[in-house]
């Protein structure tokens, strides 16, 4: 369980850093290839985890483009490691971070940013002091959804994780093992914790969004 929380925390932190610029670019651009970029970002939602997991196993493996480079750099492989799981989870949860942020950025009134610019703010300054505070709702949704989605991840971890205790055996895999070995009591215990967590987190997010929306 603790491992899953660590994985979700790292993944969410990295996703905020990656997803913010992507979402901002998507919200502002008129480039003709925008739909293509959007499609690539959204693909993990519709692709089965087995497809993602299969290609990540190859890409991150010692023979793969990323994995081979990583082996040269650090001497160890990415597959079956916590680092590998973080990378895989970032790919898997990317749309859940990008889409709420993009929606928030798109609903910003344009004139606010323009006014900040005419008052002498740099682009970056205008982004951090105007766009970010006005998009708190998007950030909260993005963070909550990526965290919860990573916690609930199963198929991808199953394929690139290797089920190593303390390293890659996340809670969903542990539950699966309990079900497979007929230890239904342990499976129920862990599952109920996850169900409770999912409900509380999502309900909190919706409460927050409603309050924020009223203002």
């Amino acid at each position, binding site marked *: 369980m603790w491992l899953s929380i660590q994985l979700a925390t790292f993944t969410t932190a990295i996703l905020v850093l990656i997803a913010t610029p992507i979402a901002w670019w998507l919200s502002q651009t008129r480039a003709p290839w925008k739909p293509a970029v959007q499609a690539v970002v959204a693909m993990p939602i519709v692709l089965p985890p087995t497809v993602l997991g299969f290609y990540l*196993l190859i890409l991150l493996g*010692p023979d793969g483009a990323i994995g081979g480079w990583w082996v040269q750099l650090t001497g160890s492989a990415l597959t*079956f490691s916590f680092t590998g799981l973080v990378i895989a989870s970032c790919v898997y949860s990317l749309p859940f971070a990008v889409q709420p942020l993009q929606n928030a950025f798109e609903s910003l009134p344009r004139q606010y940013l323009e006014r900040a610019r005419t008052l002498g703010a740099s682009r970056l300054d205008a982004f951090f002091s105007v766009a970010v505070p006005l998009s708190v709702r998007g950030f909260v949704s993005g963070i909550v959804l990526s965290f919860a989605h990573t916690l609930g991840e*199963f*198929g991808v971890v199953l*394929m690139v994780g*290797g089920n190593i205790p303390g390293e890659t055996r996340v809670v969903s895999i542990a539950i*699966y093992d309990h079900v497979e070995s*007929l230890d239904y009591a342990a499976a129920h215990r862990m599952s109920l914790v996850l169900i409770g967590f999912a409900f509380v987190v999502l309900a909190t997010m919706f409460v927050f969004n409603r309050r924020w929306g009223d203002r």
Partner: protein
Amino acid sequence: MRARAIMLSLALVSGPVLAADTITVAVASNFSRPAAELAEGFAGETGVSVRISIGSTGKLYAQIVNGAPFDVFLAADTERPKLLEQSGDAVADSRFTYAQGALVLWSRDAEDCLAALSDEDSGRVALANPQTAPYGKAAVEFLKAAGGWESVSARAVYGENINQTLQFVATGNAIVGFIAKSQLGAPQLPEPGCVWEVPVASYALIEQQAVLLERAASNDNARRFLEYLRSDDARDIMSRHGYGGLQ
């Protein structure tokens, strides 16, 4: 898994309306290829077509207990069929060992499987999850008997089932792996660097048992299929796929 469950239920809902001369057999994933050939052989002999549902033994067991519409269960172990018999989900006295598996050590990249297994710097060692998969349990038994478990467990990775274990080695992510002998004939398997048959005496027999499920208690076609599994034709198919020592 969620998606798989949904797909499965969709498949059950939208599946073709079955004729009376069709039986549905739940098959442990390690036995999927021989099962397909057996289904063909049985259909050729009797005209009864066999619909095969593949999954892990534990998952199929859970589905059967919860009312899955299977007539026959070909498990990868003896434990689950026994439990089904005890709980009344399987027909009493229908249980028998239809196949016996053998464990091999396999590598894509290493030339000497045993050297790669004992060299701590050679890379990861793949085995099926010993808690849930009979071949994983057998691999641990062999390693403990041979005294190598301490060194191997530190660099072991666990496949969900025996097919995933093979996949870890076939993609170069693990240097050697304990797989089922029956997998050596898998299509598009990379050229092996080495194959080593684990001495049969060093692990408990990997017996795979079949049972007739309760809903098919009066289904003659399902009973005939179980009979067919004991026939010489069926044994030929199984031994061609690396299963041996049938009772």
